[in-house]
């Protein structure tokens, strides 16, 4: 089924996709002429497949559950923000805060992602085939941020238990973020993600970064202060 955003209202298209008749066999949708509109495909909650042909604005596929959304173009701020499950593929570049606060699912960006990619992520897997901007994985709690290119300044600042994998260079690490051993468990985890997403890449080429756990744990030496 095809929708044309130059002819149909965004709210009507979103409403239709958010309320799919579960008995219907129509599961594939296309959206033409997105023209940078915001919140395209936000709040989808069924196992459907949507392809957007063109560039989108903010919060594309935000809060996604189960759906697979492919954008043949660039995306604005907050693509797949707070995604719960499902898959979001971006064929171009992503703006700031890609995958912010995402709880689950996979976000794959073929190009670059700019500042604060994966900020406060809570379980999502974010794969960026290009590079990421500064302060990526800021306060990231859970999930994997996998970067094929380089990472700009302050990667993983104030990170909790999310894992960061970088193949290229890291300009600088943020507070409490350190390089960790690329152990068997992490290699297997990456293998599993790559297999699921049909990505041919050797996990051993990546370095792993995570929390030094000095910032978010209570220091027992301070117990006497109370």
């Amino acid at each position, binding site marked *: 089924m095809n929708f044309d955003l130059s002819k149909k209202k965004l709210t009507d298209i979103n409403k239709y996709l958010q309320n799919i008749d579960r008995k219907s066999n129509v599961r594939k949708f296309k959206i033409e002429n997105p*023209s940078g509109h915001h919140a395209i495909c936000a709040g989808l909650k069924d196992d459907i497949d949507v392809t957007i042909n063109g560039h*989108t604005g903010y919060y594309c596929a935000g809060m996604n559950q189960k759906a697979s959304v492919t954008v043949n173009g660039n995306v604005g701020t907050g693509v797949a923000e707070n995604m719960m499950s499902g898959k979001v593929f971006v064929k171009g570049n992503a*703006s700031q805060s890609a995958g912010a606060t995402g709880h689950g699912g996979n976000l794959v960006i073929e190009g670059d992602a700019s*500042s604060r990619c994966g900020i406060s992520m809570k379980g999502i897997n974010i794969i960026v085939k290009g590079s990421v901007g*500064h302060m990526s994985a800021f306060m990231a709690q859970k999930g994997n941020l996998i970067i094929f290119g380089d990472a700009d300044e302050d990667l993983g600042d104030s990170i909790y238990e999310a894992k960061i994998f970088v193949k290229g260079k890291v300009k600088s690490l943020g507070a409490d973020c350190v390089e960790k051993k690329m152990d068997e468990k992490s290699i297997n985890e990456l293998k599993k993600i790559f297999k699921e997403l049909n990505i041919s890449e050797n996990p051993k080429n990546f370095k792993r970064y995570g929390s030094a756990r000095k910032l978010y744990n209570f220091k027992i030496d301070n117990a006497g202060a109370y």
Partner: protein
Amino acid sequence: MCGIVGIYLKTKKYEKSLGKFLSGMLDNMATRGPDSAGFAIYTKENQNNFKYSICLNNLSEQDFKKKISKYFKKIKMIKYSDHIIMETKDKPKEVIKVINEKIKDVSIVGYGKSINIFKQTGNPKDVVKKFKLSSFSGTHGIGHTRMATESAITTEGSHPYCTAEDECLVHNGSLSNHNNVRRDLIKKGQEFKSENDTEVAAGYISNKISEGSNLKNTLTSSLKNLDGFYTFIAGTKDGFALLRDEIACKPAVVAETKDYVAVASEFQAMAHLPNVNSAKIFEPKPGVVYSW
């Protein structure tokens, strides 16, 4: 919030459509700034004459003509709604002095050999119609839609700010040290018409350039001297430059084709431009000056 836009033509192909392109860009950014709008259109440099963009406020065109012809003889005027583009050989120093001292009812919103500035309160969609922006041709232009924060919704509070010949600035963001910078610049002889933070940034840029710095170095130095959040587009008669502060909270996107470079707060501002879907589209990096 505010929206900023800019378009620079690399070839002559779209010179006649410049106004139409910029008008659409401002129209699409009305949601980011519904309080006022303004734009600067650069046309080919006029070697002999200076152009003064003047907001008449409540003065009639006839009364302005009567008053100004007491001081300057050979002048040409074209009226666009409540603005006038006045052409004369007389130099900015004299003309600005006369207007500021003798014809206080009107305000000069811009001057130079190629710049034309229009700005007014109201929804951007109405402002561009009022000044018939889509009928303009030119080489490059920048524009602004304002959601007022730190100063009132007035013509003086609207962007772009022109603080020197053919120079202007639009800004999305807010500066936190503008009062300090304003005091320093006033000591150096810079004049300000409003309480607005962007006017201070424009004054800062003009002051640096008048001291011999080029636009790129000036903007780089503003990373150190202007504190706050910003995406700037600074226009000159040759083109424009773009800068985002190092934290980069304020958005910007660039689209480049073989015919033009477009800059905007959001992609949707440029979605109507020709061949934009196949353009090279990227987000400018924080703290880096881009110029065209």
